[in-house]
C-alpha cells in the first residue's frame, strides 16, 4: 500500500508489469544514473589532471577537451627536470625515506605501547590511557612551534629526523588506539596458554600477540604511508633546503617558480606524485575502505 502511494504516478500508470517491480526497476535505474553522473563529477578533476599532463603545449590552449588528441609524454621529461639544480628523483627519494621511517616507527612504537595498554597490568594504566586518548584530539599545529625550537637546537632541520623520530616515540596516538582496540579482541586464553608454557610478557608480545595483530599492523603501515606521502605542513616547516625537499614541497616550489606557464609539466609531476598513493590504494583497497568502516579511520 505504502509503496504504491510513494511511486511516481506517471511511471506507475505506464507500467506494463506489476507496479512494485516496475517501481523498483525505475528507482534502481534512476539511482544508477545519478550515481554515475555524480561519479563523473567527482572523478573529473583527476581525469582532467591526467589528461592535461599528456597534452602537447599547443593543445593546452586550444583543446578544451579533457583528454588530449594524442598522448605526448614529453611533459613528464620536462617536469622531472623542471626545477633548476635538482630533479624530482631527489624529491621522490626523500619522500620515500621519510615515509619508510614513519611506517617503521609507527608500527614498532605504537604496537609496543598498545600491548602495554591492552594486555599488561601496571600501576596508573588507566591514567596513562586517558592521557593517550586526550592527545588524540590535540591539533599538531599547537606543537609545531616548540617542536621546531627543539629540533632546531638539535640541528635536525633539513634532515628527515624531525619527521621520523617522533613516530618512534609513538606520538601517533591514533594508531596506538587502533591497535589497543584490536589487541583487546584477541582471546586472552592464548596469552594464558603461553604463560603456562613459561612465556614472559616480552615473548608473549613477540610470539603470541604481535603475529595476531597483523591486520592492525598492516592498516597502520598503509595509512602511515599515505598520510606521510600526502603530508605538507610538517614537511614545509622542517625542510627548507632544496636537496632535502620531499615531493609535496618540490611540487609547491614548481608551482611558485613556473606558475601558469608550465601547467602541463606541473600536472605531469602532480600525477607522478600521486602514483605511489594510488598503487597502495589498488593493492590495499579492501583494507583501506573497510578499515575505515571498522575503526573510523579518516583518510
Amino acid at each position, binding site marked *: 500500500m*505504502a509503496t504504491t502511494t510513494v511511486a511516481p504516478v506517471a511511471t506507475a500508470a505506464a507500467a506494463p508489469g506489476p507496479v512494485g517491480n516496475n517501481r523498483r526497476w525505475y*528507482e*534502481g535505474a534512476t*539511482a*544508477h544514473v545519478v*550515481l554515475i553522473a*555524480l561519479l563523473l563529477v*567527482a*572523478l573529473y*578533476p*583527476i581525469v*582532467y589532471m591526467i589528461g592535461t599532463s599528456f597534452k602537447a603545449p599547443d593543445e593546452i590552449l586550444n583543446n*578544451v577537451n*579533457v583528454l588530449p588528441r594524442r598522448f605526448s609524454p614529453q611533459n613528464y621529461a620536462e617536469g622531472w627536470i623542471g626545477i633548476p639544480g635538482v630533479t624530482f628523483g631527489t624529491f621522490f627519494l626523500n619522500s620515500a625515506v621519510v615515509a619508510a621511517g614513519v611506517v617503521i616507527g609507527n608500527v614498532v*612504537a605504537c604496537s609496543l*605501547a598498545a*600491548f*602495554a595498554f591492552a594486555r*599488561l597490568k*601496571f600501576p596508573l594504566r588507566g591514567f*596513562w590511557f586517558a592521557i*593517550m586518548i586526550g*592527545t588524540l*584530539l590535540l*591539533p599538531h*599545529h*599547537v*606543537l609545531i612551534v*616548540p*617542536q621546531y*625550537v*627543539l629540533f632546531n637546537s638539535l640541528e635536525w632541520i633539513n634532515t628527515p629526523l624531525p619527521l621520523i623520530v*617522533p613516530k*618512534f616515540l*609513538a*606520538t601517533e596516538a591514533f594508531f*596506538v588506539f587502533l591497535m589497543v582496540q584490536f589487541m583487546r579482541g584477541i582471546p586472552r586464553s592464548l596469552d*594464558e596458554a603461553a*604463560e603456562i608454557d613459561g612465556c*614472559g*610478557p616480552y615473548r608473549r*608480545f613477540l610470539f603470541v600477540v604481535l603475529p595476531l595483530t597483523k591486520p592492525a599492523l598492516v592498516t597502520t603501515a598503509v595509512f602511515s604511508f*599515505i598520510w606521510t606521502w*600526502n603530508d*605538507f*605542513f610538517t614537511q*614545509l*616547516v622542517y625542510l627548507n633546503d632544496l636537496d632535502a625537499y620531499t615531493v609535496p614541497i618540490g*611540487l609547491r616550489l614548481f*608551482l611558485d617558480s613556473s606558475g601558469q606557464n608550465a601547467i602541463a609539466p606541473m*600536472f605531469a*609531476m*602532480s600525477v607522478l606524485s*600521486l602514483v605511489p598513493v594510488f598503487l597502495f590504494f589498488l593493492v590495499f*583497497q579492501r583494507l*583501506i575502505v573497510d578499515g575505515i568502516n*571498522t575503526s*573510523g579511520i*579518516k*583518510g
Partner: protein
Amino acid sequence: MADTAVRPAPAAGTTQTASRGRPGRRKEAVAGYVFLSPWLLGLFGITLLPMLYSLYLSFTDYDLLQDPEWVGLENYERMFTGDPQFWNAVVATVLFAVTSVPLKLAVALGVALLLYRNRRGVGLYRSLYYVPSLLGGSVAIAIVWQTLFGGQGAINEVLAVFGIPTRAWINDPSFALGTLVVLAAWQFGAPMVIFLAGLKQIPAEMFEAAALDGAGRFKQFWHVTLPLLSPVLFFNVVLETIAGFQGFTAAFVISGGTGGPADSTLLYTVYLYLRGFGDFQMGYASAMAWVFLIVLGIITAIVFRSGSLWVHYADEGDR
C-alpha cells in the same frame, strides 16, 4: 574472581592459588613500563614539555636568534585588539568550517543513502567515490584546483554553458574561500563510507514496520533512518569539525602561501604558519597556538555536549 581461578601458576616458586602473586605482578608492572617507555618519552619530550614551553613562549618575544624576551600579555593583547589580520583569519576559518562540514556531510549522507538502496555495484562505487578522499589533501590536487578555478580554468568553460559569467574564482575575494569549500566537500568519500557502515546496521524490519504504518520515504528517513544513524552522524560531525578547523594545505598552496586574496583564504593555521615560520615571530605564533587549542577544545566540548540532545542510542529509551 573467575580470572584468578582460570589463570594457572606462572613459574616455579609460587603456589597454585596465588597465581597472580607478587613476583608475577611486579614483573608484569615492570614490563608494562618497559613497553610504554617509548610512548612516555614521546609524551613528555615531544608533547607535554613542548606544550608548556610554548605556553612560556607565548608570553615572550622570540625570533629564534636572540633569547626569548618576556613581554607579559602583549602577544595576546596584540592578537585581540591590534591585529586585524588575526580577525580576518578567524572569520575565514569559521566560515570555512561552518560551510564545508555540513556540505561535505550532506553529500556524504546523500550518496550513502543512494548506494545503500542499490546494492548492485556498491563495492565499486564505494571505492571510486573514496578516491577523492584519498588524494584530496595533497599538494597535487591543490595545484589542479588552482588551475581548474583560475581565470583560464575548465570550470569557467562549464559554467559558460549555463550562462554564468566567468571569473578567476581563486582571485576573487568573494569566491576564493568557496573554491576551498568545494574542494573539502569533494572529499566526501571518507564520511560516506562511515555512513554506509552505519546504514548497514539498521535492521530492515525497522523500515518495513514504518512502511506498514504508512510512512513514506521522507518520513522513514526522518523518523527511522536519521535517529538510528545519529551516533554515526555524530562521529562524523566530530571528526569533520576537528579536521575542518585545521585545513591548511589547499589554502596555502592555492593562495601562493599568502592566504589571499584580501585574506579571504587566510585560515588560522595558514596565519599561524606565516607568523611563526614566515617572519619567525615564535612568541606570537605560540600565543596563537594556545588560543587555537583552547577554542578548539571549547568547540569540541560543545559538539560533544550537543550530542546528548540529538544523538539517539538504540539501547536507551524506547527500545
